[in-house]
């Protein structure tokens, strides 16, 4: 398993992401600095971590989406390499156009940090298959701009194509149709606001997020 975590200035969940990945694969991921212009060869998984890349200035994820390393990430994604964007990573994926829609300021305007109950909308994605018939989980959210927006056409398509992976059971941010996480048409890119890497450890936030990594990284070795 060759994995990588992209590190932007202002990323602050990069270490958490690495710990979660290593817990499942037993091997530390490559930490790739935003100024690299090419990724390590033969990656099986790329993660865009949470945080405040470039201070979240202008628009969350906007500047990161245009940083030197991104073209190669986009190439990999288009070639089918699994890519997971969490929180700020989701915002970056949206800004690159790999995922549709936009993430706006939370409806309540306040930053929201809470343990969010989620429903798993489909277990047949590369990121949710390990959940089996589990349908309800709890994963922490912590964001200011997680209010998912897209036009009805896009939303209907996402629903029709089974690309909504997670919904909020108690919508914390005003997201359209309670959307918490979506995949691309190819099913190899997942963006989600909740932090699965903060739920891989019983002492910290429970283990409901572990299956996301087990799904995409081929289960505990």
């Amino acid at each position, binding site marked *: 398993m060759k994995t990588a975590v992209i590190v932007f200035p202002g990323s*602050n969940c990069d270490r958490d992401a690495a710990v979660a990945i290593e817990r499942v694969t037993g091997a530390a991921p490559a930490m790739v600095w935003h100024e690299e212009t090419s990724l390590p060869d033969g990656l099986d998984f790329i993660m865009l971590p949470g945080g405040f890349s470039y*201070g979240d200035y202008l628009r969350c994820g906007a500047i990161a989406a245009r940083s030197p390393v991104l073209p190669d990430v986009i190439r990999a994604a288009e070639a089918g390499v699994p890519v997971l964007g969490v929180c700020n990573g989701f915002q970056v994926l949206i800004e690159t156009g790999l995922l549709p829609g936009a993430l706006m300021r939370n409806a309540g305007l306040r930053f929201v*940090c809470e343990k969010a109950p989620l429903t798993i909308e489909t277990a047949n994605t590369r990121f949710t298959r390990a959940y089996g018939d589990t349908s309800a989980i709890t994963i922490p959210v912590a964001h200011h701009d997680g209010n998912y927006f897209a036009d009805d056409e896009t939303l209907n398509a996402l629903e029709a194509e089974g690309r909504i992976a997670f919904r909020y059971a108690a919508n914390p941010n005003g997201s359209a149709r309670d959307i918490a996480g979506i995949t691309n048409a190819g099913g190899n890119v997942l963006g989600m606001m909740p932090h699965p890497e*903060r739920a891989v450890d019983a002492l910290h936030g429970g283990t409901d997020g572990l299956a996301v990594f087990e799904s995409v990284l081929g289960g505990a070795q």
Partner: protein
Amino acid sequence: MTEITPRYAEGIDEQVALEHVTADEYETILTVLGRAPNIVELGIFSVMWSEHCSYKSSRVHLAKFPTTGPRVVYGPGENAGVVDIGDGQVCIFKMESHNHPSFIEPYQGAATGVGGILRDVFTMGARPVALMNALRFGAPDHPKTRQLVAGVVAGIGGYGNCVGVPTVGGETNFDAGYNNNILVNAMAVGLAERDKVFTAAAKESGYPVLYVGAKTGRDGIHGATMASAEFGEGAEEKRPTVQVGDPFTEKKLIEACLELMSEDAISAIQDMGAAGLTSSSVEMASSGGKGIELDLDHVPQREEAMSAYEMMLSESQERMLVIVKPGREDVAERIFKKWDLDVAVIGKTTETGRLVLKHKGATVCDLPLDPIGDKAPKYERPYFPAEARASIDPASLKTPAHLGETLLTLMRSPDMASKAWIFSQYDRHVMADTVASSEDPSDAAIVRVHGANKALAITADVTPRYCTADPYEGGKQAIAEAWRNLTATGAEPMAVTDCLNFGNPERPEIMGQFVGCVEGMAEACRALDFPVVSGNVSLYNETDGQAIPPTPAVGAVGLIEDASVRAGFGCMSEGDVLLLIGETRGELGASLYLRFIENSEDGAPPHVDLGVERRNGDFVRAQIRSGLARTSHDLSDGGLACAVAEMALASNCGAKLAYEDGAPLHAWLFGEDQARYLIAADAETADAIRKAAQEAGVPASVIGLAGGEAITVNGAHALDLLTLRQAHERWLPDLMGEDMQAAAE
């Protein structure tokens, strides 16, 4: 008066001088220098001899704190306190105030407060792992309060969330005494390798001095001095501006500093706090007995035409001063450039013992450093103690008809109501080591040591009501409650940091409060082997002669050797026996009960018997560490009834209290007697704990059973959990509404 002519350097007159220092201080300067100081030198004295930097009113009393102990590596005097947590690691922490700036500009004031305290911790080599905040606002219905709450909370979250350090706990009070002087105290906790701790003292001369971080602008240059000669004709762009923080730069600064610290390049390092360049350069040089020479032309500047005075007094954020080993400048340059931060060699250390500043080729400052420290004013301000209050006889107050209603009133009161509206705006989980934070039923926040199985317990406490009623007992109680909150989780209390917030020390009654609180805290620290390793003093918190209630905020850190062996108060279950540890005399003086039920602030606060405090606490900790006690809660505000209510809400399980005799019923329920804990356990375990208590000579009595969907007393006075939860959780959201947010940022 010293015979020195001219008495004033060019462009300075008496008024300008007095805007910087007192008349006496100016005389001292003349004698020390043997000449009149120029405006830059005057500015430097005004900073170094300010209350903030020189602690001139408090120094003599702060010396009363015990500051050493087996775990203490560095006590007060460094940027932050350092305690040994074993395995070659240390915990580094400090608490600081940002009261006035937060009142002027709530968002930026609170945000820069967080930034400043973080720098105090990582400048010593620690990666920050937790933030706490202790907030005091005015009366809920005061016209300014809601906007201040919205702005301060958004600011703390905005900064802490972005730098990626979890804000794991704190405390919040509302009291009319803070209407025009809110308190924003922030605490940062970090972890470092014991042999990788960095200090500020310049040990060598001839070493390069590097400026790193953000550029210098005209931020926060002291208002009074701006009206002075030099800026009389100050154009708009020359006016001082409020410090604005940039957490993104801070995050990069943390990573860059830690990266540089992992190389063998740093000789000494110091964050730029208030009047950054002045205090940092002076402190680094004088604490090392060296001199320092800076060329201000090399200081990275954000604005045009900055004067030497402005550069030396600027409070621009996210800046550090680093003395590197000769020849290692390139290492620093590489790292800070990588992080897109400014880095510049601006001078060198010297043997002269003087601070020499060059600007545009001219020497604009040449001061001997020793006098700045030695001759710094140190006042023994007159004070008289507050006169003692009579204690309240609980029997003189009539027992309310429905005690469930009484409990409801307290649990929805500003002090007891849920603060979820606040802490849900703080990222409490980033770094993935938070074991317990604000939302969890734990008397202290618990943060695991990354990669290890042990954890830090962290708490922030003080009860201003008590300090007002009796500064000495209140000071003791603040330390005792912090120690108790740590103990109730099973942690070994290690050390204390503080933030002493008071009014104008030139008023003897205020100084009396200060001295009383400090002496009370000091006695408690000695009795509990709980040394003070860092702290901060904030005086002059008053408006129109109205001083804040004395508020010596205490931050404390404890150690949990095995993170899986600890106690919280959220697992009380049907049939559990409720065991009260400690004695109940029913002390209602200065209690929440008195405030919200009798509308009185009267009476003597609960007495703190430190011997009993220690005995009971050591016993409870032993029960938790042996694995017997898994559910325990300390008793504080609102006494037994409120502790039971908090346990019931957290466990979603009611309780049937059984009152037999002793203090009058209302005092038994709401008395705030100290040194008490509530333990919930199955009958068998409870029995074992009770026996152990008997042997240890610790009072322990069964006061009821867990169960049902309500809290009852002798089968009556029922308060159902749903009603309780609604009232407890809705108070703050209802106060804040939704209309404030648009203005918060």
